[in-house]
């Protein structure tokens, strides 16, 4: 399927996929002599679920880290919402509307579920510190308003029961869900999920898949995710990028990717006869 950057289209299940919101152009990332990402280009469209897959060490997480600014590529351009992005600090990129979760859960372990998700509202709260310090009108109103949004997210993710529990005490699956909540709280224009289902059992995976689809459906959030479970990836994503040894070896709908010879080779190995 070839489409113009600004065109929209309808998916078979009736969702609208909009124009390109993020575009990676010829990204190369090196760590000393190691090339983590080799000249990769792909785009992410508004409202779609875009998966990045590949064997271990393919450079998927590095790619996510480039998108959210933890890594700065040596070559290539990142275009976000029609503008070329200058090299930026990760916190500045968060303010542009990119939120993420981490492969090895990175929650604020000492804080409660509520406070964790509330911290996700950081970019939405503007009251200066002296107003916060004395809890004057604007700061208090802001605190209350944001708290309401957070409560909605807690309802949405069905984690009311653990609102006041320090997250360090929660089981793994729930921690992953809280982390998703914290990222959602920022109302991101692009949500990055680094292996949202890693280490989960089948039931937890189904829950998480449902939440990801619901987020995409209800809020129209654009999602880029890394996942190992091929079944899940093929089920929930609109388009898939396949990476191997830092290079892109496939890009397209799940069906196209499934039948791509290079992809099959990477995953199943090639017979060297």
């Amino acid at each position, binding site marked *: 399927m070839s489409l113009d950057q600004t065109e929209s289209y309808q998916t078979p299940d009736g969702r609208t996929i909009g124009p390109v919101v993020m575009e990676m152009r010829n990204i190369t990332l090196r760590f000393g002599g190691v090339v983590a990402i080799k000249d990769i280009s792909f785009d992410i469209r508004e409202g779609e679920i875009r998966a990045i897959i590949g064997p271990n060490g393919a450079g998927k997480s590095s790619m996510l880290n480039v998108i959210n600014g933890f890594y700065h590529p040596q070559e290539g351009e990142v275009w976000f919402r029609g503008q070329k992005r200058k090299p930026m600090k990760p*916190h500045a990129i968060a303010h542009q509307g990119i939120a993420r979760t*981490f492969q090895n859960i990175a*929650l*604020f372990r000492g804080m409660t579920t509520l406070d964790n998700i509330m911290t996700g509202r950081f970019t939405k709260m503007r009251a200066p*510190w002296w107003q*916060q310090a004395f*809890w004057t009108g604007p700061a208090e109103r802001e605190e209350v308003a944001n708290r309401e949004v957070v409560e909605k997210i807690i309802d949405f993710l069905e984690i009311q029961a653990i609102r006041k529990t320090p997250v360090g005490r929660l089981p793994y699956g729930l921690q992953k869900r809280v982390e998703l909540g914290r990222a959602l709280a*920022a109302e991101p224009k692009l949500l990055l999920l680094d292996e949202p289902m890693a280490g989960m059992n089948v039931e937890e995976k189904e829950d998480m898949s449902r939440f990801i689809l619901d987020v995409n459906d209800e809020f129209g959030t654009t999602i880029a995710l890394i996942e190992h479970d091929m079944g899940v990836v093929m089920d929930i994503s609109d388009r898939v990028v396949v990476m191997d040894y830092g290079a892109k070896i496939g890009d397209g709908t799940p069906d196209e990717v499934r039948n791509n010879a290079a992809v099959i080779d990477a995953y199943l190995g090639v017979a060297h006869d």
Partner: protein
Amino acid sequence: MSPTFLYTIEVILNGLMAGVMYSLVALGFVLIFKASGIFNYAQGVMALFAALTLVGLQNGQVPFAHLINAVFGTDVHYFGWNVPTVAAILLTLLIMVAFAWAVEALILKHLVNQEPIILFMATIGLAYFMEGFGDLMWGSDIKKLDVGLPSGGSFWLEDLTAGWAAEGAEYYGMYIDLLDVWATMIAVTLVIALMLFSQYTKTGRALRAVADDHQAALSVGISLRTIWVIVWSIAGFVALVAGIMWGAKLGVQFSLSLIALKALPVLMLGGFTSIPGAIVGGLIIGVGEKLFEFSIGPLIGGATENWFAYVLALLFLVFRPQGLFGEKIIERV
């Protein structure tokens, strides 16, 4: 009531109030350690520097007077006017914030992702630099600090308790220094305010977030550098309060920076990462050393206050290395 019993109560009360003063210093350490993993050796010197600046401003001293006189051959020492106490405190606070900003811009910024030991060494350097800088700026003579807090024994309490002892006993009432009472009240207010701020405001949550996980904090849009400036500013504020209290008690002198050493056993008891730990640790050490001196001291020749806290800390290191409230250290292998 027997006089011994009343003495014991008096000792405990004095111990609690001394403990609050230790907590105040330990609090500054905990704030910075939590947020950036840096053991800030310079915390004691920060208290000294704050106290020096406050006194200097109050007395209308010309900063760098010796330097100016040596270079230009002049003979200036005082401006000839005094800054009112409240204004002087606010000005000192501003200077501490500027100092926090300078520390971030000149030191921390360049040492991001370095080993903790490197950062620790940097704070040792900072401590000696500040000590010298304070000397150059305000001179090294011992100064009297008076911020208008009442001091001296409380006659009210003395009269009240004098009648409690049994008839005919030789007891003349409890001696409680009013300055200690004030220091305790101010410290308690400060701690409660800090707790509320960190619980219920955006910046407070951001502080705790950075303390927990740098990467995650960045990913929700928190700038580490801003937080570091804020944390060092708050630590500077705590140092100022500690400097005022200790300075009013002992006079503003360079040995004031050694109060940092008193904070070490407090931290070992309470845990390096816990604010309640710093408070409780300080109280335990304060009461512990006073009671020990009162009960065992006479048997072994006294002066136990110099080492009791460290021995207690040593015992804690052996049996509970994470402290009373510190996070348990679990290393996954």
